[in-house]
């Protein structure tokens, strides 16, 4: 046991006597007389139900969260009456701008309403009769193996940080739980798809490991957020779109469709988070952009990695024999990704003139 409460409540005669008194009918009901802000939050649009936006009122709402949270380090829900003696639960992320994005509550609601079930929504019968060759399948399986690892990292980022975030930022924490769930779902469907195709999972490789380690070992939450949500999710979105358009298999198209939907939510959060952070703390733009440049360096390593590049070429061409002819299309795909990524960086306020990805695609085109 790591934590021993200062007071031994278990052997406190006063507490025992109070409980016994209540059970004998000597109630005080003092909690009934507390002065609280009374609210009646009802669905503003009955078709949508009671959303978090409907509960964003008064002291209960997220608009009331101060930038620096000093008053509550416990798990007491925001807006509750805080009695004396609440313990510190060890939260060390207590600034709203560190994690908050105005779209987080809506993204949480969207995540719940767009839930899908990999085991049933994917037409797995289409994987039992593939309709394409072994090499193409191995190329797909390699990309799905990479995507499985990316999804695992995407779930590990919120897992690493959420329990350190102050409970006042409740909707944000819930959104991070939705991210963990989405990532687990994606990891499940990618792995199942790779195995079910018959050729099985592909290879783990160092270049991808380096990229994921850069993301996961980011020193602060904003650094982790910008690298996971803007860069990694952007790359996953590109890969999934490409798989969806390259494979004629209905299962791949379904996975791509749902996958893009899920990672796009995290992309939207990442941009919203950066915008909000840099509105409050504009001086952080330089260090975040520097960090993203460093993670981009690892992404360049992945994109030029022979196994990653050749798997993309194979899937683009449809067969090993024609893969060489597909190189210009893979380069176009990279250019498209980098162009979208740079637009997102600019929208988020973390643009950079020294972006390694921009340099890389320029070099490829030279």
């Amino acid at each position, binding site marked *: 046991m790591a934590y021993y409460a200062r007071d031994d409540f278990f052997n406190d005669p006063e507490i025992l006597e109070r409980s016994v008194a209540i059970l004998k009918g000597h*109630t005080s009901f003092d909690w009934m007389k507390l002065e609280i802000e009374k609210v009646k939050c009802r669905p503003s649009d009955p078709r949508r139900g009671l*959303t978090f936006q409907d509960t964003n009122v008064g002291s209960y709402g997220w608009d009331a969260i101060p930038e620096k949270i000093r008053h509550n380090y416990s798990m007491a829900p925001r807006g*509750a*009456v805080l009695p004396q003696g609440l313990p510190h639960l060890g939260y060390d992320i207590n600034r709203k701008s560190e994690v908050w994005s105005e779209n987080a509550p809506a993204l949480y609601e969207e995540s719940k309403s767009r839930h899908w079930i990999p085991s049933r929504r994917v037409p797995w019968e289409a994987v039992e009769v593939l309709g394409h060759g072994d090499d193409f399948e191995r190329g797909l399986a390699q990309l799905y193996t990479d995507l499985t690892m990316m999804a695992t990292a995407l779930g590990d980022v919120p897992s690493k940080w959420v329990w350190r975030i102050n409970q006042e930022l409740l909707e944000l924490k819930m959104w991070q*739980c939705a991210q963990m769930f989405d*990532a687990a779902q994606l990891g499940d469907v990618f792995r199942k798809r790779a195995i079910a195709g018959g050729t099985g999972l592909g290879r783990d490789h160092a270049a991808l490991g*380096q990229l994921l380690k850069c993301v996961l070992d980011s020193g602060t939450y904003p650094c982790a957020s910008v690298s996971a949500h803007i860069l990694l999710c952007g790359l996953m979105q590109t890969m999934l779109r490409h798989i969806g358009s390259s494979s004629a298999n209905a299962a791949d198209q379904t996975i791509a469709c749902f996958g893009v939907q899920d990672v796009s939510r995290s992309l939207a959060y990442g941009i919203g988070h950066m915008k909000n952070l840099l509105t409050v703390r504009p001086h952080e733009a330089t260090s975040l952009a520097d960090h993203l440049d*460093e993670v981009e360096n690892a992404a360049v390593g992945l994109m030029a990695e022979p196994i990653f590049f050749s798997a993309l070429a194979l899937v683009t061409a449809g067969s090993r024999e024609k893969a060489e002819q597909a190189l210009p299309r893979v380069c176009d795909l990279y250019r498209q990704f980098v162009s979208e990524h740079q637009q997102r960086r600019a929208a988020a306020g973390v643009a950079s003139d020294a972006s390694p990805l921009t340099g890389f695609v320029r070099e490829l085109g030279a």
Partner: protein
Amino acid sequence: MSYYGSTDYSYNSDFNLRIRDIKKGNLDFSWLDDARDKVEIRRSDPRRGLMLADCEVGPYAIENTPEIVRENRGLAPRGAILAAGSDQPDLGPTLNRKSDVWGYRVQRYWEEAMSRQWNVTTDVPWQDLDKYQIPDELEIAFCQLCTLLSEVEMIATDLPAKWSHHMNSYFQDVKAFIATQCIDEARHAEVFRKRALANGVGLLRASVRGEHALKGILEADSYSEGSVFLHVLGEGFILTLFRSSEFISPSPVEQRMFQLVMQDEARHVSYGLQHLKYLMDNCEEIRPQINGFLDEAERHLTGLFNPDQLESMIVLGGKGTSPDCIRRGIEVVGAFQGKQITEYFHRAERAGLPERRERSPLLELQQRMLAMVGGG
């Protein structure tokens, strides 16, 4: 930044050669030639779709995974062909023993969680709240209960999240299940919060002693200790509380809420039991440590029985504050508290810890209280 990739590609001559190779169209397909043998995967029950259990073959199966995973230090899924040891970046997983995290039936719980997701926003009939006239004292009591429940539910997201990213990626099934628990519990905190804010009152008083119990869970030394405290003890007690919803719900809207949260909570308790059982079956030497931990955890847990909660439950159980209602409420609460303890011991026994019944301080406390209440 705490990690810089091993290669700076802007100053790397090998990399420039690689780009030249790409531009020339020299593709390396050696990875195609040393791939795994083919496997045939079929849905065992097409109505259920492709389940994890259907993919449990050869190198992909957990039963073919050693108790201690040494070879995978990255994020490779179970069954992938690993990069050569020296090439593989170490992502530092610290939970690398199967018995550290595994539970019987965890794959089934994962699939079940996926298929039983629900939505607080739309699945609770919020518009029906206007149909029922809930007396003020019951509404306030229910809001006090909701305050406690939304306070405690988030521990069941924070504790699993705290450990999930430390788990070896070969145990993806457990990580995935834990992610479902996180979203389930977020939903529980959401439903009790929304309910407290929906009907003219609001959130009431947080619990100091309850918070100390939550801190005890969050600061457990190991995942297994945290799990046994959270899943078996804490969520077990909450599950029994949810099961008494018939008595404590002021209207069918709240009954619906409890029905929905109960199915999730039962799954979490089951995982905790199956993890504890797996641990006891495979790691007998940890028994004294778990018992020692529970001795203290059970003391912490009594923090949840604070006066505010006890009184609000009495009002809800007795449906009012008149002397008759209070008498009836005390009977309801007494019965359900006894049930919480009985069911906990029953669960501990099923998980392979029958000694809890003899060893636990809970029984002694209960008997002391009964004697004091009965003594007049």
